[in-house]
């Protein structure tokens, strides 16, 4: 879920950088020395995990996992995702310098929103937790998709159809991310519940 270089207009690019800067700023402020290693290593883990192909029907999709990132990192998701995206650009030419701001916001803002919406519910027991976990994974991608489509549309109104196709292509991913988040949260609650802040 990222926008290629050269697609965004100046104002959208600038807005992306501004929001990303605020998010990264808050994240860095909350990132104390105790958690630098943890954030870095988790950031590396998300980068790597997002390379996993999961089959759906005849196709394969990459995982996004920003719901879980939010649950594990809160605001620190912003710097962690910014760093991971920069590395994806360096290694695979996914995105680049000018789209880095917008791409960070597309993934990190939903992560933070879902953290506030669902982290308290996920700590509960039974069905509530399970439903919240699914919703967290589903909605993190959903919000990201809305942001992505918005960034395209506000860059150039002619991108409307492109944006809607990109958005609908993400619907199956939302469902998969919902299930993956559901099971993954189940795993974490059993094995290391203190990781879910």
């Amino acid at each position: 879920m990222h926008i290629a270089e050269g697609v965004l207009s100046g104002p959208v690019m600038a807005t992306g950088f501004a929001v990303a800067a605020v998010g990264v700023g808050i994240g860095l402020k909350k990132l104390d020395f105790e958690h630098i290693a943890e954030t870095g290593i988790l950031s590396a883990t998300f980068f790597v995990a997002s390379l996993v192909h999961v089959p759906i029907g005849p196709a394969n999709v990459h995982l996004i996992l920003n719901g879980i990132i939010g649950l594990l990192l809160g605001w620190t998701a912003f710097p962690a995702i910014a760093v991971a995206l920069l590395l994806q650009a360096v290694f695979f030419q996914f995105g680049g310098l000018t789209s880095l701001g917008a791409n960070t916001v597309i993934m990190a803002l939903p992560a933070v929103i879902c953290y506030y919406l669902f982290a308290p519910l996920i700590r509960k027991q039974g069905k509530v937790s399970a439903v919240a976990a699914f919703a967290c994974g589903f909605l993190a991608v959903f919000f990201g998709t809305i942001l992505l489509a918005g960034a395209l549309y506000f860059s150039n109104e002619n991108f409307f159809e492109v944006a809607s196709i990109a958005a609908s292509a993400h619907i199956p991913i939302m469902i998969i991310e919902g299930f993956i988040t559901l099971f993954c949260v189940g795993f974490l609650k059993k094995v290391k519940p203190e990781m879910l802040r």
Partner: protein
Amino acid sequence: MTEPPASAPLLSLKGLSFNYPERPAIINQLDFVLNEKAHIGIAAPNGSGKSTLFHLIVGLLKPSAGKIIYNGREISKEEDFKLLRRQVGLLFQHADDQLFFPTVLEDVAFGPLNLGKSKAEARALSLKVLENLGLSDFADRITFKLSGGEKRLVALATVLAMEPKVLLLDEPTAGLDHATKHKLIDLLNSFKDLSYLMVSHEFDFLTETTEHIYTMENGKILVDEELHIHHHEHAHRSGKQPHRHI
């Protein structure tokens, strides 16, 4: 350490070669035969390609040249390897890399479930394997919280639950204490009907569990230069009391 009865070759490697991308060959024209019920040790330096060899055998890496023959049949396509992997179990160098379910029982049952067993069957089989390894109490423990030695034994259980004919064991003793090593020795010695090929840096352990110890050099297994046994010093607590060695 007597010679086993002459028996049929179960697994043969012929002219096997492999290199990681943009690296020189790490396995180079390697020939090797593992007979039925044979127990072979390999002791070789770090980086000589032992783990790589094991991964080649079960098809996790693809050789650049050479043949893998199992039970008289050449294995080359992924479909063949899928069948091979049911019979040839690999114990990873790091047990941590092999366990990824929250509880021990789930982890052990994963293989049998993938082989198409029903939940009840998989569960029964897993419990039996755990019992055989003396791990009955562990079924509901969280794998991640087990000690290094316990993880190793559980990893072995996950392999045994696939009911393999051949075991490939990659440094099963690294970081294990004496008691756990002894347990492993006893276990391995009870696997009379299995063949195994085992890598270890510890000669003492290999002499107690294998019939031959070979080494690797320049990407080949040196079968003709077998390692010899002789005496040297060894430190031991309460050396006067009866005790065993590893």
